[in-house]
């Protein structure tokens, strides 16, 4: 953690940890070479112009149904995918168009990721201590073997495991314990930002509670910034400071988490919230939901939610809505932009 503090620029205190500007990512789905030559190219617009701002020490969540592009956003930010266009400003420095491993390394140390599948995210042939030490070794953070070992033991304790667990292999642990190992690895290089991609969706509820509590404790203790990707609205509500609701590669509603959960405005956010089966019981009023998520390869014209929207107007079918400020949050909806509220 010493390292993190000495390298952090002074001006950083006021700049947000992460700013994403007009991020776009297309996947080329053209199958054949002939198709490519003839210009019959098919693109999947996984992210279609996305803006996010995450303040230091807070949690920003992206929610949405499968295929909405939220995991692609996470992977563009940490650099597993190269964005097609747009900016990713980490501490004010654009990392989206950085080229070369050497240039990226200092940023990589400060940005880590926790993955969904606790079984696939740990190399089955490595010992746990090797797994956790990898970021330390890669960035040459500690001078010798003993120091690395000492740090690994500290990390194991920090995530609620025993120092002796480092000698074991991943298959000797349960799903929840493996996720703790993943967290220890993410913490190893003393990062500022951790991207959590569905960190608990493969876990049972009682274990999920352990992991969510751990993530919150670590945030308080280390001042971490989280980008949380999840389809579980209850988890998001529990964890987030701010939140963005995604639908087909775009944000439909962005704002303070409590505000959005307390009083959702966008028709899709409302629908999503009312669809969650809640242990609260039958008291919840359901908004009727029709239809499926459209195929992202050929999204609907105008507002991509219009075929399922009960408040659809002519304009929605033709012009894609631009996010605008309504009741303290950004909403991409023509009806809300014009009237400030949805018709009763």
């Amino acid at each position, binding site marked *: 953690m010493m390292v993190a503090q000495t390298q952090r620029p002074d001006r950083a205190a006021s700049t947000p940890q992460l700013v994403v500007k007009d991020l776009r990512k297309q996947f080329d789905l053209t199958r054949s070479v002939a198709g490519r030559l003839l210009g019959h190219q098919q693109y999947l617009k996984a992210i279609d112009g996305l803006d996010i701002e995450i303040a230091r020490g807070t949690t920003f969540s992206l929610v949405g149904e499968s295929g909405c592009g939220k995991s692609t956003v996470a*992977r563009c930010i940490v650099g*597993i995918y190269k964005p097609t266009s747009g900016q990713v400003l980490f501490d004010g420095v654009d990392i989206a168009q950085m080229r070369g491993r050497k240039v990226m390394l200092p940023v990589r140390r400060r940005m880590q990721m926790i993955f969904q599948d606790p079984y696939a995210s740990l190399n089955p042939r490595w010992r746990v201590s090797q797994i956790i030490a990898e970021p330390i070794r890669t960035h040459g953070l500690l001078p010798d073997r003993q120091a690395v070992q000492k740090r690994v033991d500290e990390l194991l304790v920090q995530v609620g495991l025993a120092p002796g667990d480092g000698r074991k292999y991943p298959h000797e642990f349960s799903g929840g314990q493996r996720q703790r190992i993943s967290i220890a*690895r993410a913490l190893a*290089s003393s990062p500022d930002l951790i991207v959590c991609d569905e960190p608990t969706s493969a876990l049972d509820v009682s274990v999920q509670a352990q992991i969510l509590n751990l993530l919150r404790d670590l945030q308080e203790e280390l001042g971490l910034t989280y980008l949380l990707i999840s389809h579980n609205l209850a988890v998001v509500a529990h964890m987030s400071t701010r939140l963005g609701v995604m639908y087909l590669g775009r944000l439909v509603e962005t704002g303070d988490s409590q505000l959005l959960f307390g009083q959702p405005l966008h028709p899709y956010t409302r629908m999503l919230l009312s669809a969650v089966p809640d242990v609260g019981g039958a008291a919840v009023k359901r908004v009727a939901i029709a239809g499926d998520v459209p195929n992202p390869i050929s999204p609907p014209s105008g507002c991509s939610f219009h075929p399922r929207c009960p408040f659809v107007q002519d304009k929605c079918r033709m012009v894609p809505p631009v996010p605008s400020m309504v009741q303290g949050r950004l909403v991409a909806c023509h009806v809300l932009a014009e009237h400030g509220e949805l018709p009763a």
Partner: protein
Amino acid sequence: MSILRRFANSDLGYSFLHSRVVVAAAIVVAVVVVAAVGADALAPHNPFDLASLELFDALTPPAWEAGGQWIYPLGTDDQGRDVLSAIMYGTRVSLMVGFASVALSMAIGIPLGMISGYFGGMLDSVIMRFAEIQLTFPAILIALLIDGIVRTALPRDIHSDIAVFVLIAAIGFSNWVQYARTVRGMTLVERSKEYVQAAQVTGVHPLLIMLRHILPNVASPVLVIATIGLALAIVTEATLSFLGVGVPPTQPSLGTLIRIGNDFLFSGEWWIATFPSVTLVALVISVNLLGDWLRDVLNPRLN
């Protein structure tokens, strides 16, 4: 001892000990390998020590046949060489060529497959198209081609000295595609796994990711192919030697022995060709059985 006990208690060991065919195959392989490797000490004669050859004993039938002698258990060939000893020395050459060519195939195929699968794109297309082109030629043809080129390029006496290496190169180069394809497929699977992504996020060098993360996880299917590939390489070597483009007669392999014996098959001296052939078949079948068993045991989908 404890290693043996641990093996017996592991799933691999359990499945091994509970399959009679596999145990039998392993015993055959063990016997053949020990006899071949220890030929210098174990063989009753040195068939290539010209001084020890007795021309009077040429074409002696096996010991149990009329006219056989127990000092030549499996009989002798036309030059009085003990067939058993010749087999032991010949198997050594065969095994050596087999192992070395498999090692060469792996040394070419595994890195190319990993690079192809990991980086994808143009590099992948180029490597895989090249592999496919090579696949359209039978392995024997490629081996003959390489042998032919070396033969015309080098003077005859040098050629005899390096014949074994030419053979290894010929077989090794003709079999790398299978390793490359398998490793590429496995690499594609592993690359998309989150532990590789975690290493990428951390900024680990791609070369280290391939070496330290992916390679250990693609090792088991490679081991299976290598086992079956060993059998294939031994057969290929025997075929080439039988055709006369393999190792020189002064340093015969099993294939060479079979070719020599073949000349005597119709004149009644059946033992000269038969015993090397039986050894070859037993060895190849056993190695194949072991390979099949390994594939079944190591394949998680079947478990």
